[in-house]
Structure formats: structure tokens, C-alpha cells
């Protein structure tokens, strides 16, 4: 085991995968010589050569389109979209091509690519460096959607994604790159190095795609969440003293319904928490799944705590971001109902 930040864990996963399989190629904007604006690919070009890790032109559709062609040839491209907010130009290639290729060709061609996407807010990045578009991809059949919340999972899930025979959208909550962040922006930042989940296995063990983890066990209410919000949930639980079970979904598609159902049937209450805008967000899917499977177990209406249905603001960031206070109030409400 080694102490790693999430950035180091992601870099290490690349390193392991590239060492094990020379079909793994890594590219994207600024990822080559410089190692990425978040440094997640630093050192890879030096170690594996320009043929294995290189800079690309600034064209997200081109990056994904080229990766699809490479995958059709037989390589395993792992590509970076610099910010989730910049994945939209690639939307057609992802939805109409990557997601469909296996099905439409009856596996004559397949598309084992990994699209790494720094996501989420909390960095004063305003509306084009803070968005959380995961729901848009969860709606698209043929894609897998993964979002780790800590270095251990980041490494294991990235290795699993690279090994996966199908396209994976791998969201990296950038606010967690250097340490867990619980939404208290005015408190000192904690580092992963001191956190138990910052202790990462050095080998190439995977974390299975499609399996949630129970971040905190509890009996009174289930919090379904992922990414940065795991730590916000934790803070809210501490602050309210409510014995909530925090489920870190880790994979949004395919979803781990079993774990969700077991938890909600145990607690009888459920809060859904994400950074993304509310309407038609992934939280709606979670509410629906619980409603369909746990109707007779529910003791109170479920509640969504989410980003508001507005563009992500710059100055009002901490009024937009679902901070522990908002989550705590929602928890109290659910317990009262």
C-alpha cells in the first residue's frame, strides 16, 4: 500500500495499465509533455514514449472520434476531456458512435475506450469549469458511467474501466483530487495522505464496475450519493447526529440496485444528493428506482438535495453547492416526516 492523492492514484492506474498492455494509448489536450492541466498523466510520455502518451489538437469530437477508430483497430485508448463542461462538442461521437458501435454491428466492431472527465464544482470555476453532466450519459444505453470518490476507488475503477470491453465515461470529481472536501470551503483542506482511503494498493487490483460501497453504515435514513458529495453527506451526518447510511454509488450505470434496495428497505427513508442541476438529474432516476422497489418500505417522502436549476455561478458558488447545512436540514425534515 502507498499513500496517494487521487491524482497520483489515477496516474498510477495509467502506469500499471500501460506497463501491462502496450495497446493502451493515452492522449488528449495537454496530456502529453505537460502531463495534463491536473497532472493526471504526468510522467507517462517520458516513461512510455510519445507513441503511448501524446498531446492532441483542441477538438473534443476529434479526440473521441479518433479514439473510436483506434479502438476499432484494436488499441485501448484512454483519453482525457479537460473539463466535463467541454465534453459537449464530443457528444455526438459518444452517443451516436461509441455507445452504439457494438450493438449496431452485432459486435463486428467494439469500442473499449475510457473517457476521463474531471467534473464538478467547488473551485470557483464558474459555469464552464464546474458542471456535473453525468445524467446525460446515464441516459444513453451502451455507455458505462463511473465516478470514484477517493484514491483507492479511483485507481481500482480506472483499471477496471481500461479493462472493460465497452466505453466508459470516467468522471473524476476534481474537488477531490488533492483531498476529501466536505463543502466547508472556509475550513482548512485535508490531504488524502492522512486519509484511510488515500492508502492505495500498489498492484493492479480492480474495483468492480457496477458495485456501490457503503461509505458509512447507519440505520435511520439512506443517503444515495457519489463523488464529492460523499464527504458533504458525512459532514451533515456528523453535524446533525442522524444515523444515516451513506451509499457511495461509485458506478451510476449500470447501477447497483441491490445495494440501494437493501439499504432503503433497512432504513425506510432516503435522501438523494448530487451537485448537478436537479430537473431530470441522476437523482430523479434514483428516486424512481427506490420508489419502484421500496414503495411499501418508505416511511417518508424521499428528498433530493442538488445543485439548483441554474447555470453554475461564480460568486454564489457556496449558495449553489449543496453544503452540509442544506443536507442536514433535509435529513432533519426526512426524519420528522
Amino acid at each position, binding site marked *: 500500500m502507498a499513500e496517494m492523492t487521487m491524482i497520483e492514484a489515477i496516474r498510477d492506474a495509467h502506469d500499471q495499465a500501460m506497463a501491462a498492455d502496450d495497446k493502451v494509448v493515452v492522449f488528449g489536450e495537454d496530456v502529453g509533455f505537460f502531463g495534463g492541466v491536473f497532472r493526471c498523466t504526468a510522467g507517462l510520455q517520458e516513461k512510455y514514449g510519445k507513441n503511448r502518451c501524446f498531446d492532441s489538437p483542441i477538438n473534443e469530437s476529434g479526440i473521441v472520434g479518433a479514439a473510436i477508430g483506434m479502438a476499432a483497430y484494436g488499441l485501448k485508448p484512454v483519453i482525457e476531456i479537460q473539463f466535463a463542461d467541454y465534453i459537449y462538442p464530443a457528444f455526438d461521437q459518444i452517443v451516436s458512435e461509441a455507445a452504439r458501435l*457494438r450493438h449496431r454491428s452485432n459486435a*463486428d466492431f467494439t469500442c473499449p475506450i475510457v473517457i476521463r472527465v474531471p467534473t464538478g464544482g467547488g473551485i470557483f470555476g464558474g459555469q464552464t469549469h464546474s458542471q456535473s453532466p453525468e445524467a446525460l450519459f446515464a441516459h444513453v444505453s451502451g455507455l458505462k458511467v463511473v465516478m470514484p470518490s477517493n484514491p483507492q476507488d479511483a485507481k481500482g475503477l480506472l483499471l477496471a474501466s481500461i479493462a472493460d470491453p465497452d466505453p466508459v465515461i470516467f468522471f473524476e470529481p476534481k474537488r477531490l483530487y488533492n483531498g476529501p472536501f466536505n463543502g466547508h470551503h472556509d475550513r482548512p483542506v485535508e490531504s488524502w495522505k492522512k486519509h484511510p482511503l488515500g492508502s492505495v494498493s500498489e498492484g493492479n487490483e480492480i474495483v468492480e464496475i457496477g458495485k456501490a460501497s457503503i461509505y458509512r453504515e447507519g440505520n435511520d435514513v439512506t443517503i444515495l450519493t457519489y463523488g464529492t458529495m460523499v464527504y458533504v453527506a458525512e459532514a451533515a451526518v456528523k453535524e446533525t447526529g442522524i444515523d444515516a447510511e451513506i451509499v457511495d454509488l461509485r458506478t451510476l450505470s449500470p447501477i447497483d*440496485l441491490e445495494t440501494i434496495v437493501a439499504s432503503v428497505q433497512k432504513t425506510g427513508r432516503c435522501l438523494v444528493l448530487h451537485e448537478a442541476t436537479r430537473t431530470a438529474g441522476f437523482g430523479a432516476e434514483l428516486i424512481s428506482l427506490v420508489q419502484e422497489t421500496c414503495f411499501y418500505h418508505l416511511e417518508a417522502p424521499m428528498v433530493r438535495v442538488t445543485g439548483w436549476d441554474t447555470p453554475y455561478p461564480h460568486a454564489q458558488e457556496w449558495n449553489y453547492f449543496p453544503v452540509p447545512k442544506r443536507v442536514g436540514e433535509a435529513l432533519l425534515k426526512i426524519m420528522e416526516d
Partner: protein
Amino acid sequence: MTEKKGLSLNIPEPGCRPGDNPDFSDFDIPRAGSVKRPPIDVDPDEIRDMAFSIVRVLNKDGEAVGEWAEDLTEEDLREGMRHMLTLRAFDTRMMMAQRQGKTSFYMQHLGEEAVSCAFRKALREGDMNFPTYRQAGLLIAGEYPLTTMMNQIYSNAKDPLVGRQMPIMYSANDYGFFSISGNLGTQYIQAVGWAMASALSGDDKISVGWIGDGSTAESDFHAAMVFASTYRPPVVLNIVNNQWAISTFQGIARGGVGTFAARGHGFGIPALRVDGNDYLAVFAVAKWAAERARNGHGPTLIEHVTYRAGGHSTSDDPSAYRAKEESQAWPLGDPIERLKQHLIKIGAWSEDRHKQFEAEIMDDVLKAQKEAESHGTLGSGQGPSPRDMFEGVYEKMPPHLVRQRQEAGY
């Protein structure tokens, strides 16, 4: 609009609309044999003029002339004839099958047969095409089974794509034919990516991108050009300029200035135009570009100048937007007629033999059709199972799809 004070917008119009007399006299057609053939390692800047000319081999008397005339044997030429006639017969039968309700949709190649058939001849096993819906000649000239194509068109029990795709959206990896997408332009950059992978792997296989004149306007055309210019992978980028994109003429995609080929110049990519209705010219140009790619000289952009003589698809009636006579007036003629004339000219063919050959080929197509129909046609009840719809979304079916499949009763 408010009263004109100043400017006005240029909105291009085709030369002729229904009721007008087609007039191609503005269309500058160089003499066959007049364009020089440069070495494959030519500096792109030295052949800029080729983007404004047209490589042509067959002259009006059916002779093969000039530096681009290849040493094709009579057998090669007859094979080319067989491929083009097969494609035309195939189209005829499938157009009819669609009208008979045996399938939902079809797209034909009328007048454009030389482009895909001749190009295929320059490729090797292992090379990969990223075609549009109008290059079935790549399959036919690659000797892909006609019955299998028809099975796909019929979505029948033997459809290799198990009913998932609309008719003609073939996929044939073993035949160097990438799965066709319904979305225009997307496959152009994928072709570049495939070629990048080949070069990264130290391989010598090449890929071939295909796009229509109208679709060059799509943004992925640019992605392909940028990546091709930056990484110089072994790819041939074909533009099939058949003058029309459904109801819009090619001027809507380029404003009537320059040529589509000239788009290569901004990227340092050698670009040329070829007479797309001249089997020999298409083959020669394809071979040149393929050799460039295979020998590490990078991408080539080729504009095939041809004409979409039929409707866009079975859903389209072109008489609503262009003169019926335009197709006859098209100055580059019909690719099959022109190859026939050449074969006769060199003493390897006759009108009678051609008729007989046509009949034989139609016979083969009919046989293939009979066989395909024995496995069912769309809606005949012999189609693939609803189960097939749930399979293959992912390699392994995830739990929610298993649940949905069960919910659907399969």
C-alpha cells in the same frame, strides 16, 4: 426585413430547377490524360493545381490516355464491369423489393458505381474503409456475399446484424468495411484514428474515409483534417461529390467557390480531383493515394466528381427540386457505359457480350435474392428475436437489461 440600407446575403442557387433546361457549360472538364501524375512523395505544395483540375483517363472515344492510365489487364477490366453491373442489378432488385414492401428502406448508387468499385481494387486485405451508405461497391468488389447483404436489408433470420440496423447499414470487419452510421461525417475522423493506430503499431495497413459533398460541411470533416494534418497517418480521405445532398446542390456546402478538394490545402494535405465516372481514373488515383499512405507519405484528399442519378433514397423524389433532364445532361456520362465503350474499343467486349453478361449477373442477383428471401423479409415473421434487441448493448448484459428483457417477456 427592414428596408435595405446596405448589404444583402448571398444564398447560392443551383444552375437548374424543375422546369429549367439543365446547362453544364460552366463546368470545366479537362481533357482526359491532361493531368500529370506526380511521384507519390511529391511535396503537396507542388500539386496545388490538381485540386482545381480533374484526373481523367478515358477519353470521349473510350481510349485510356495519359500518365494515369494503368496497366490493367482485360480480365481486370471485365472484373470491374462485373462489379459495377452487379451493384446496379442489386440496386434494381432492392429498389423493387422495397416497393414490394419486403423491407422499409433502400439507397441506390445509380451513376456512382465506379467510385466504390474501382477504389476497392486498390486496397489490400486488412485495410479498412469507413464508408457512407453509398459505397456498397466496396463490399461487392470485395466479393462479399450478396445474400448476406440482402439478409441485412430484409432484417431476416440470417441478418448478420440481427435486425438491429436499418437496411443497407452493413458492417463487415473481415472485408475491410466499417459499420455504417446513420450520422453523417462521424466516420471520417474515425478513419483517421484507425490509421493513427496502424502507424502507432508500426503496421502498414491503411484506412479509407468516405464522405459526401453535403457532409463535408459537418464538423467532423474538420476534426479529420486537423488530426490528419497533425499526425500524418496512412489514410485516404475520399469526398464523393455527387452534386446533391438530398435537395440541396453542392453549392450550399461550399458557396460555389473553389473545390472541395482545395480544403486540403489549408492542412498541407495533397488534394486532387478525379472523374468519378471513369473506372480507370478512380482506380489509378486510389492506387496512388494508397501507395502514398502505405509508404509513410501520409494522407491524401480525393474529390470524386460524379452525379447522383437517382433519388437520395426510397423516401425521396428528386423531381420536386431538380430538373428530370439534369441526369442525362451530366457531362461525365455513365460509368458502366464508359467502361463498356473502352472494353469494346480495345477489342475485349461487344454489345452482345455485354447484354449476355448483364443477364448472367441479374441471374446471380436473383438467385441471391431467392436465397435471402427463403430466410424471410421484414415483417415476414422469420426475423430475429426481440431477445436480440437486448443483447449486445454491452458485452455482458447488466442486471437492468436482464430485468427489462424479462419484463418484455423474452
